[in-house]
């Protein structure tokens, strides 16, 4: 499977990246090379194989449902690029 420039542009929006025309061209060709290489996986018949998402066979890991200390507001906000006394500040969600 190869990837088109239009698909790369669409994926860049999904990934919240804006790529210049020159970056889009290069990304299209590099992703094409990588996906071309990855295509060799289709040689393998994996119909009967269970996917393995994780190396450990854990099911669920539980802990007591008890209140624990967590970051206080000031610490949590300390790294915010833009904030007021209590909240993160963001640009408008909806455009005009």
């Amino acid at each position, binding site marked *: 499977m190869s990837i088109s420039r239009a698909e790369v542009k669409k994926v860049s929006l999904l990934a*919240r990246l*804006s790529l210049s025309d020159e970056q889009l061209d290069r*990304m299209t060709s590099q992703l094409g090379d*990588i996906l071309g290489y990855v295509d060799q996986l289709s040689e393998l018949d994996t119909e009967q194989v269970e996917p393995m998402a*994780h190396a450990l066979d854990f099911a669920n890991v539980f802990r007591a449902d008890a209140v624990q200390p967590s970051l206080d507001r000031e610490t949590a906000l*300390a*790294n915010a690029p833009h904030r007021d006394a209590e909240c993160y500040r*963001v640009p408008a*969600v909806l455009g005009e």
Partner: protein
Amino acid sequence: MTSFSAMQWVRQLTAGKTTSVDVTREYLDRIKQRDTKVRAFLRVDPSAALAQAEAIDRRRKAGKPLGLLAGLPVAVKDLLCAAGEPTTCASRMLENFRSPYDATVVAKLKAADAVLIGRTNMDEFAMGGSNENSAFFPTHNPWDLSRIPGGSSGGSAACVASRMAPLAVGSDTGGSIRCPAALCGITGLKPTYGRVSRFGLVAFASSLDQIGPMGQTAEDCALLLEVMAGHDPKDSTSIDQPVPRYTQSVAKPLNGLRLGVVREHFGEGLDPEVDLAVREAIRVYQSLGATVREVSMPHAKYAVATYYIIAPCEASSNLARYDGVHFGYRSKEERGEARGEDREKAGSYFAGSSPLIDMYCRSRSEGFGDEVKRRIMLGTYALSAGYYDAYYKKALKVRRLIRQDFDQAFGQVDLLVGPVTPTPAFKLGERIDDPLAMYLFDLYTVSANLAGIAGMSIPCGFSSQGLPIGLQLQAPPLAEERLLRGAAMFQRATDWHTKEPNLG
């Protein structure tokens, strides 16, 4: 003069033959002399390091109990959080980030009375095999400054190789401890997935990431692993099994050791000098009484393809957190919070989208480097509607086949032995425009991460150009003791691990 290894320093310190302040000063002096050439460190704080050393010396003098690493300088890869300090991941995205808490590994280093001497350079977000993806500067290979140190823990490997720290912490998602250890001529261990807590490790690919020790010898790695390993309630994927006293067992040879040589790891693409050094190392094991048999890993050749789907998928998800809101870089162009003129400017990027989304896109595009963007794009694509089954799910199925290859091999042998990298260190800039060639360099290492097993790199020779060559040992899950003993046994019979680069 050769430098003491970490364990030799520990013995000197315990016997009162030197002080932590003297040891720390010696390493700080070497950093001052050598790091202008090697550039292994992102940050060194000499006064903070000396203050820690003084405090430990005082406690030692007062006869107070001390931790396993008491007074020993340790360098830490810049992706582990340390409370109140920067953790940059060698990215513009986190250049001004200060960790709100200690990673469990950092807390354990502090509890073991290590002197945290500095933070090491790396490929941005641990993505890369050459250290050239650091947003700040590339680290150089101490054996040939025109060459890469390997990555992504290249700073950690280079600082141990140039004796600017006796021990360093690295992380390995697809070979990021083992490859730079091999290319810099040091010893590095990637533990079993879950052996060391990942809490406070900046995530790249959460089902593959593992923190591990890097040092001059297997004994040194045993020491650091003993400090770092263990279950952590803050990491639900950490394994709840007791931690063996690796330092107590490491010197015991493995009698009747059965070694497996993976047939598929000696094919096309393996540099003849690496091939020769690895085969010579296998003969050393035979002379120590090990039996060697060939094993087949029929899915080995699919490991890179599998890895470069799974790791980017996980990365695209993990790195979605960098939104310019909670922490990390935010585009300067969006300071004016929805003021009319800013919105207009932002709107030109994606017509019809929101100022908020524009801010995300700008911040991420300006904050991430090329390789990180490439992997986010690859992962986003492979997880997107219509492609999930063909790429991600397919890769997860092949991952199981790779794990089954290992399970079968370890039914017949105790350790697998082979090359770490296909060639010795290449030149800086040589592969920077060819990501696929860069990925193929991980051919022999990624499968251990996919399977979750333990792996190690130990020095086993030099190329005709004087570049170090590594030998890879791999062990079943939680067999780190066996791995370390196997490595130490080799190091007692050889002296490759004692060689030091000449940095003038």
